[in-house]
């Protein structure tokens, strides 16, 4: 079982890869809309990547209103 820290790191790594950013350039508290310059649709695409990676299903309501990696990682952690 992953710890929350591990999950958070994996979320950051995956987001960086998905949006072609240098590894380590994202932090847990970053707002992904601002930091990645993405819109809500691109966020949904990122979520699908995360679901595949963690082997979980994240219902849309779980990520409603979430805009930072830390909270996103917490939502993922609760479903692992």
């Amino acid at each position, binding site marked *: 079982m992953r710890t929350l820290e591990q999950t958070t790191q994996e979320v950051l790594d995956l987001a960086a890869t998905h949006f072609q950013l240098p590894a380590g350039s994202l932090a847990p508290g970053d707002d992904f809309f601002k930091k990645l310059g993405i819109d809500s649709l691109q966020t*949904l695409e990122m979520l699908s990547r995360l679901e595949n990676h963690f082997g979980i299903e994240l219902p849309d309501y779980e990520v409603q209103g979430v805009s930072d990696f830390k909270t996103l990682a917490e939502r993922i952690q609760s479903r692992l």
Partner: protein
Amino acid sequence: MLDLSKYQSIGEALKDALDQFANEVCLIEADREREKERLTYGEFKARAHPLTKALQDAGFVAGDRASIIMTNQPKWLISAYAVFFGGGTLVPLDYKLTPDEQWQLVKHSGASVLITEYPIWRQLSASAARAAAIKLQTVLVTESPPNADLAGARRWEEFRGEGEPVFVPRARKDTACIVYSSGTGGRPKGCMMTHENYLEQCVALTSIYPFWPGVRYLSILPTNHAIDFMVGFFGPFTCGAAVVHLRTLRPEYVREAFPKYKITYVSLVPLVLKNLQKGLQARFDELPATKRRIFDALVAINKALTKGRPRPGISRRLLKQVHEAFGGELRTIIVGGAFTEPQTLQFFYDLGIPVANGYGLTEAGTAITVNDLKPFRADTVGKPLPGMEVRILNPAPDGVGEVSVRSKTIMSGYLNEPELTAETIVDGWLMTGDLGRFDETGHLRLAGRKKNMIVTEEGKNIYPEDIEAVFESLPVKEFCVFAANYIWPKRSMVGEQLVLVLRLEQGRQLTDQLRQDINARNNRLLNYKRIHGVVLLDEDFPRTASLKIKRNALAERLAQLDNATAVLPL
């Protein structure tokens, strides 16, 4: 289609539709690749009537208000029908608002019933703002886990009355829905939409974009929004068509839904449409050179053949693969909620997929103008719908002035706001606050806004007053939020942004610390509500005798600044 001229209310029309089309499929619900449910109109009625009966048993009577805060799904429509059948007024709210905002609007609407989903209720029930909704008596929650703490709510699935409910007739001029067009921050704007508004709008829209049994509409825009309520519920239901709901709106599942359910119509906001365009363009660009040349030639032939009007049969044969990706039966993409760039519209039309763009606002009963495709005109928002009188007030020499509208689809007014209503509807004409002009063929061209607000590409209306609270107690002398286009009109409907205007304390600078503070507060807002820059003004803001900021006077003062250098990035 039902002859809607015979009906007095939404409930009466839907009641007949459920009987007339009893054996037709009305709803399909899918979650990811799984189809969860498929209901006929007859089954829909069997689900809705016990709910109305239970509401009536609990004291729900004509004119009582019931709010729905749900994602797009069959229980939304079943609940709405149950409310209309019982003579109630529906208050559809945006499930994407924060719990505090939702409670504020529930309170403002005076709703006695709230129907919501468990994940939303979990957040709503934890909010302290709940105490404000003093008129609320009954909360129904769908899809609650077996042992969930419902915090005083009842399970929607178990809220069923015995026996037949009593149909409660309503008059055409009675309020059918209270739809909030804005105002979650300060002054809620609850548009009181009458039964007549919907009946008339439905007749006008379906005269151009018809539904019939067998048509499948993919419902993606939130159903609380005027567009989806009309073309994803009332319109198809009065014609015996089917509505498809997806519980997961990830792009890959939306894409799969088109061929899987043979979608006929879909409504999208410009942002999603542009994203679709980007995806398609990338695929075209990946084609090997020879294939690309053939493809471009086919697109050119299609363009020539559809110049005067859409010819779906021909387009589907010429550009088979593109159309098959959309299921092969897509007739039109309806785009609304915000302005769509002409090149995006043209892109799809050239592929043989007409995009029905138009112009409207909640206060006008959804659409005012729609592109009738005779011929397709990407550079305009179309012609006025049947029954719509549209005129341009105080036109400038180039013909641009404020768009005003008169029709049976105009709201009766804003709830509890007689003054605001009187300012907005003058002698029966709705002042839209949008600027535009008619061209020589009678098509409307929009040219910016007269009002201080923006509409995002996601179709969200943002009023600066509504987001100012987040900047309260900022260590500055004064602040005010504006739509940049309101200060520096650029006669454009795209790329609209909000700016924060600051009057710093004497001798203070815009330090990194202050920037961080502004950014931190800005990030508390939902992403589409955030400001994009700061404007510094080195003088006191003009104020009224009661010390309220004179926004118009301040905007006039700011307009003297150079737009290019005045807005500082955050």
